[in-house]
């Protein structure tokens, strides 16, 4: 869910710098390639379709919690913010509030976006009523 969000939205929901644990980068943020695979016939053995850019980041909070994120694309800020949010979501003081201010709204927004696309798709469903009647 964090990977699908945009960086600004995550940044806005995180506690301000003075009121959150300090984090140290363990790896990245770094951009590289991820091979995407399909399946032969959609269900069979895998084959290589082509690569995508991904950016990953791992960081550790002062109290030892480790956050990790990998996102599609090359937005280093997004990967780092997502990794930071991942660490905070494991933190007893921050997990519950962050679930409410970040994860719940993200889930709702992403579900809404999916539903909006599904509704447009549903409107293009072909109905063969006439043909069925003629045949029947």
């Amino acid at each position, binding site marked *: *869910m964090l*990977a*699908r969000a945009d960086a600004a939205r995550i940044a806005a929901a995180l506690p301000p710098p003075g009121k959150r644990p300090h984090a140290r980068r363990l790896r990245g943020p770094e*951009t*590289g*390639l*991820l*091979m*995407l*695979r*399909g*399946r*032969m*016939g*959609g*269900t*069979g*053995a*895998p*084959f*290589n*379709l*082509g*690569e*995508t*850019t*991904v950016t*990953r980041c*791992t960081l550790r909070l002062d109290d030892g919690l*480790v956050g*990790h994120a*990998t*996102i*599609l*694309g*090359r937005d280093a800020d997004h990967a780092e913010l997502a990794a930071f949010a991942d660490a905070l979501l494991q933190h007893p003081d921050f997990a519950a509030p962050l679930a409410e201010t970040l994860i719940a709204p993200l889930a709702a927004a992403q579900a809404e976006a*999916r*539903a*909006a*696309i*599904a*509704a*447009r*798709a*549903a*409107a*293009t*469903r*072909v109905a*063969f009523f006439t*043909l*069925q009647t003629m045949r029947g």
Partner: protein
Amino acid sequence: MAYVAVKGGERAIDAAHAWRAEARRGDPAIPALSTGQIAGQLGRAVERVMAEASLHDPELAALAIRQAEGDLIEAAFLLRAFRTTLPRFGAALPLETGRMAVRRRISAIFKDVPGGQILGPTTDYTHRLLDFSLLDDPPPPPAPRAEDPPGPMPRVATLLEAEGLLRPEPPGEAPPFDITREPLAHPAPRDARLQGLARGDEGFLLGMGYSTQRGYGGSHPFAGEIRMGAVTVEIIPDELGFPIDIGEIVLTECQMVNQFHGSRTEPASFTAGYGLAFGQADRRAMAMALLDRAMQAAELGEAVTAPAQNPEFVLAHADNIEATGFVEHLKLPHYVDFQSEAEAVRRLRAAARAEAAE
């Protein structure tokens, strides 16, 4: 024949590049294109460049298109070259197109296919008339929405397999052949062929696929199913050890269903060809599926008579970046080469003249 390195001409090359940059920008009185505009409004071009570069990154593909002034092969070349600058972190889990958030799904063989025929944002039923209203850039009316969401959409292939009419896809989880890492030997396995087709030039795939329909290795195809939509990308990071969702990409998948007459050992059934492409790309996915099926000829015991059935021919010529490199390198100086050939021809002509004079 070979290209021999030459020196000199730096000033001329700099001037040529400067002119190119000026020409690329065009009339300064007209606003410059942004990569956001290209990615957002020339989506089919962006998807084609990503496919042929074999790198999914809409922003960079848009940049490449802008830099290449809309020359999509040049853009794919730029993006393919950029790809070589990045380390590979690993591979994603296979994309499960059966769990696609379907935007489009049609079957040309089952009118009442379970889950229904969903046209999606298609151009199939437009009249291909130029829309002059677009010159004025009017905001489009909102697309209609229907309340009842589409239900489950079982694969057409699965329905045919259940009836025994289609040879089931052999399962497997072995890491696939990677044509970017291992030299391709022939006969190439199907996973290598699909990878080669996935990055092949769309025009080449289309022409070769079309050749099978015109009788050069024909196998009577039907579009069993075409589906397009967003598919979740999942990885298992080493540090976590369980799969995580890292986002989604839009794919088009095509399953062609082809006649097969059976053999002494097998009852008659249909066979399938498979195509998968980044973005909304019916033409690419369909052409790929036609060629995937055509290239199974030898494995199915069919006579291999046509170019499309010959994986070595198809795969060696499908990559437009290799092709353009080899064709266009002829523009580079071949002075020494040509001089030696010219010397030889002059010698032969002189010898022939001398012989005629005797």
